[in-house]
């Protein structure tokens, strides 16, 4: 794509992109770290994740500001307009993912107090999948790769399946031994958080699709997470489809 005639406009857009990619990397790191903290029962690492979230928030604020300034000063049209709006959306999704990662990290402290809580392995596997999906969504955005974006979109089904599996495992554990209900609950929340991160990743993929085609992904998203609706009444959050 050729450069803007006004080079400072091009620089603004590039800066927005760089910040967004930095945020993406940071958020993926946060997911990985929180999962790692769970796996290695490292409370300190979990703590660091909690603290690092401030950084994510800061980048989000920065991106919001950049978008505002581009809209106000550059009056972007067409692809520029779409990219600017998408950047705002993607940053928001990343920020949410960051929040969820922080939330996970906070639960690590409770979970690691009890050795007997089951499902860690499954959650770690799930976490890796989620992290990979987020990274892939960002890659799709970065490369304007609509196919990759669609992969992310459909890849979310696997995460939902993981989530269901974790739920079953942890539930079974709780039924067997109700002394560690607290830890188990935390574990389910951990998994649920990861599942929601996956949802956010699909939205990032959709946004990158929009940048290129001016259309969001229209296909019905595969949905196999039954945890919220079928078996248990857990507190719901702002998930909307």
């Amino acid at each position: 794509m050729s450069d803007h005639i006004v080079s400072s406009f091009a620089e603004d857009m590039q800066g927005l992109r760089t910040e967004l990619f930095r945020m993406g990397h940071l958020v993926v790191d946060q997911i990985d770290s929180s999962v790692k903290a769970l796996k290695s029962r490292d409370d300190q690492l979990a703590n660091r994740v909690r603290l690092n979230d401030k950084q994510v928030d800061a980048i989000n604020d920065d991106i919001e500001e950049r978008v505002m300034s581009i809209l106000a000063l550059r009056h972007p049209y067409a692809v520029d307009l779409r990219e600017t709006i998408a950047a705002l959306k993607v940053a928001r999704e990343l920020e949410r993912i960051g929040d969820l990662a922080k939330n996970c990290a906070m639960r690590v402290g409770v979970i690691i107090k009890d050795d007997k809580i089951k499902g860690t392995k499954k959650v770690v596997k799930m976490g890796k999948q989620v992290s990979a999906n987020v990274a892939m969504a960002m890659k799709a955005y970065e490369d304007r790769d609509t196919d990759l974006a669609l992969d992310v979109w459909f890849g979310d089904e696997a995460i939902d399946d993981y989530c269901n599996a974790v739920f079953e495992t942890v539930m079974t554990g709780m039924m067997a031994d109700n002394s560690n209900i607290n830890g188990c609950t935390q574990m389910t929340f951990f998994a649920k958080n990861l599942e929601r991160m996956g949802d956010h990743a699909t939205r990032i993929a959709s946004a990158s699709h929009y940048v290129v085609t001016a259309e969001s992904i229209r296909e019905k998203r595969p949905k196999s997470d039954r945890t919220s609706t079928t078996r248990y009444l857990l507190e719901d959050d702002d998930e909307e489809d």
Partner: protein
Amino acid sequence: MSQSKIKFSCRDVRVAYSGKEALHGIDIEIEDQGVTAFIGPSGCGKSSFLRVFNRMNDTIPGCKVTGIVKMDGEDIYAPTLDPVLLRARVGMVFQKPNPFPKSIYDNVAYGPRIHGLAANKAELDEIVESSLTKAGLWDEVKDRLKDGGTGLSGGQQQRLVIARTIAVSPEVILMDEPASALDPIATAKLEELIDELSKKFCIVIVTHSMAQAARISDRTAFFHMGNLIEYDQTSNIFTNPTDSRTQDYITGRIG
């Protein structure tokens, strides 16, 4: 481009100045309803094309127009058609406000006078008042109709020119960058007026300001190097143009 009536239809319209072709075969259909905007870089031929519709190109020495231009199905370049009459039906507003160096009243009354549209003074007064009202200028000038038209502010002058144009009861109003010499407030007023006028007149506007085209037009045609590149609903042109040249132009890239 759906149910609305077609006002102008052009087939392979070419405009040449002293043998040098400035427009290379334009095919377009201008709808009767709403505002059609022509955008494009300077020298792309959009103003030349605008002047095709009222044969103002005839007044430029060495300018030659070929192709078929039909207005309501009638060939406006037919030898039997009188350009003077055509221009009464297709009014034009220019880049720089050009009121006549006469009184405000005479500016508006000039057209009706030469075309004999008013039978007496009272009728003429009525035409002047209604034209000025439609142009949103009546309240500002009703107490000084005898004052010079050139004494008004730029925005007022441009609205006076519009009043002068609509006093002849045209079907179409062509506007050649009408706001380029105006400040933002005058521009805003003018845009509002265009919006208002578009309910009664077919309006074709050439503009350099993409924001303006985006704000006021229903359809936008993008011209580049004497060619019509893209012609679509304005919302499509400004969010998702299909041609990369359009894309580059409206996003401000080197094309």
